[in-house]
């Protein structure tokens, strides 16, 4: 079955090391790297960081109660460091996965980019270089700081991140220029166009993706309507209690602050992961014709992907109610998504291997 599908697809071409191939492999690789990073971050950093931030706020409150203004400033300097640590790691995860989505999207629009294949390949290389530099730079910001920097507030890691961002903008401008030329009537036809086999795997990913996005949107609307204002008022109330010198249970109030931060974090994570997995499912439906696996294996990996895509956000939400077990299940959900992505990547690699073996050229 795969062989029959292959022969029809092969005719459309999928040139060795073409821009489309680079973006497809790079995109899936970036998403896998981003998800693995997110899993490691969730297990080893997220909760510990939240606890430490709560402790530092309690220390600031204690310093205020002791009329120790420098102590307050020291505690807040530590809070700033902890927030930077957490923020840069979340940003690394988000930028890796989002650059991956964008790479997949660019792979799909390559047939409509009217530029010579060498230039398209160069743009793809620039895009992928920027996609690696940007998150690596963001990750290093917390550790490198201002060491050896000639600038008063910008460190070398920020320079690396900004340079990565500039490369992404450059590559995207180039792609936009190619698209503009295509819409003006120029044609190069070096990449296969979007095609659909209308297979079960494609349909399941499209429908499942739309449902995931819908669920994420509905949950976000529910959170905004019923929990957001309540959480915001709760934060102010907790901070007021921390500043109350008569408050004897200051450490437990600080714990309340940590729990509130965790509650908000899981709500936002569930909302954004549902939507992102939905978008990813739809993007993956486009590449199914390039996944060179038996139909039943393609189905299995699609089911694995969709199961993980639902499990991760649902169990992330349940973390506040049933604790570590839910955390473990959420991580397992993430692992299912990663395994399914790697399996699809192997399928695309097999496809390209066969295409090269039979000498398919654009």
């Amino acid at each position, binding site marked *: 079955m795969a062989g029959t599908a292959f022969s029809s697809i092969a005719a459309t071409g999928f040139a060795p090391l073409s821009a489309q191939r680079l973006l497809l492999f790079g995109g899936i690789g970036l998403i896998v790297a981003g998800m693995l990073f997110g899993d490691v971050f969730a297990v080893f950093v997220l909760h510990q960081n939240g606890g430490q931030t709560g402790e530092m706020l309690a220390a*600031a*409150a204690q*310093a*205020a*109660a*002791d*009329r*120790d*203004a420098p*102590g*307050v*400033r020291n*505690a*807040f300097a530590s809070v*700033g460091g902890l927030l930077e640590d957490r923020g840069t790691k979340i940003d690394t995860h988000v930028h890796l996965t989002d650059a991956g*989505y964008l790479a997949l*999207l660019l792979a*799909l629009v390559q047939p409509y980019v009217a530029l010579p294949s060498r230039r398209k390949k160069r743009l793809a290389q620039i895009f992928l270089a920027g996609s690696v530099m940007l998150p690596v730079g963001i990750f290093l910001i917390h550790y490198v700081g201002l060491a050896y920097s000639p600038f008063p507030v910008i460190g070398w890691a920020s320079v690396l991140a900004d340079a990565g961002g500039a490369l992404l903008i450059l590559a995207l401008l180039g792609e936009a220029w190619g698209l503009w030329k295509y819409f003006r009537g120029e044609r190069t036809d070096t990449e296969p166009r*979007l095609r*659909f086999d*209308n297979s079960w795997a494609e*349909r399941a990913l*499209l*429908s499942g993706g*739309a*449902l995931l*996005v*819908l669920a994420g*949107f*509905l949950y976000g*609307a529910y959170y*905004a309507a019923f929990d957001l204002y309540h959480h*915001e008022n709760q*934060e*102010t109330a907790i*901070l*007021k209690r921390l*500043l109350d*010198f008569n408050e004897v249970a200051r450490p437990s109030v600080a714990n309340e602050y940590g729990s509130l931060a965790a509650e908000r974090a899981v709500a936002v994570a569930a909302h954004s992961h549902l*939507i992102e997995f939905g*978008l990813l499912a*739809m*993007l993956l*439906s*486009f590449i199914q014709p390039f996944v060179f696996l038996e139909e039943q294996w393609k189905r299995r990996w699609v089911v694995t992907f969709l199961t993980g895509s639902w499990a991760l956000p649902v169990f992330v939400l349940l973390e506040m109610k049933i604790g570590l077990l839910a955390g473990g299940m959420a991580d397992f959900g993430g692992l299912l998504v990663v395994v399914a992505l790697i399996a699809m990547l192997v399928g695309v690699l097999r496809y390209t291997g066969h295409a090269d073996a039979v000498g398919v050229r654009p």
Partner: protein
Amino acid sequence: MSRSGRLLLVGGIALAAAGMLYGLHYALFIEHQTLEHMGESLEGAFTQAASENWANAETSLTAYADTKYKYVRQVDAHSHWIGLAMLMIVLGAVFDRVGFSERARYWLAVLLLVGSVLFPFAVLLQTASGGKVLASVLAVVGAACVTIALAGAAVGFFRKASAD
């Protein structure tokens, strides 16, 4: 490509560009100052409390809460515009496969476009003084538009599946 697909694709690209421009403007002229103000207000509340200056501590805490309220919504508007725009672009590429008539697909696309523009705009409007009720109504209308359009697309993909 059908009219509905084109509407989603062009609308999505335009919305993404608008969302990015808003984000660029926000990052250059507003975000840094907002974050600095937020940090200073919170630290100020604790420092004022250390000096037993309760009135100023309370004022600083209120300033922190107000600034954070605005910051969350301004960033949300930016990310939701771009997120919804990406969804429109992806859906635009496959909207012909939604198993309804082109007329029904077109109206679904219109609903998604209207909701995608309106919902983040309403979130942003919540930060303006005096427009909170209108903002909430617009947010509900925008969210309803997106929900109906997405539910329609999901059902449409299923319908296509069963028809095949």
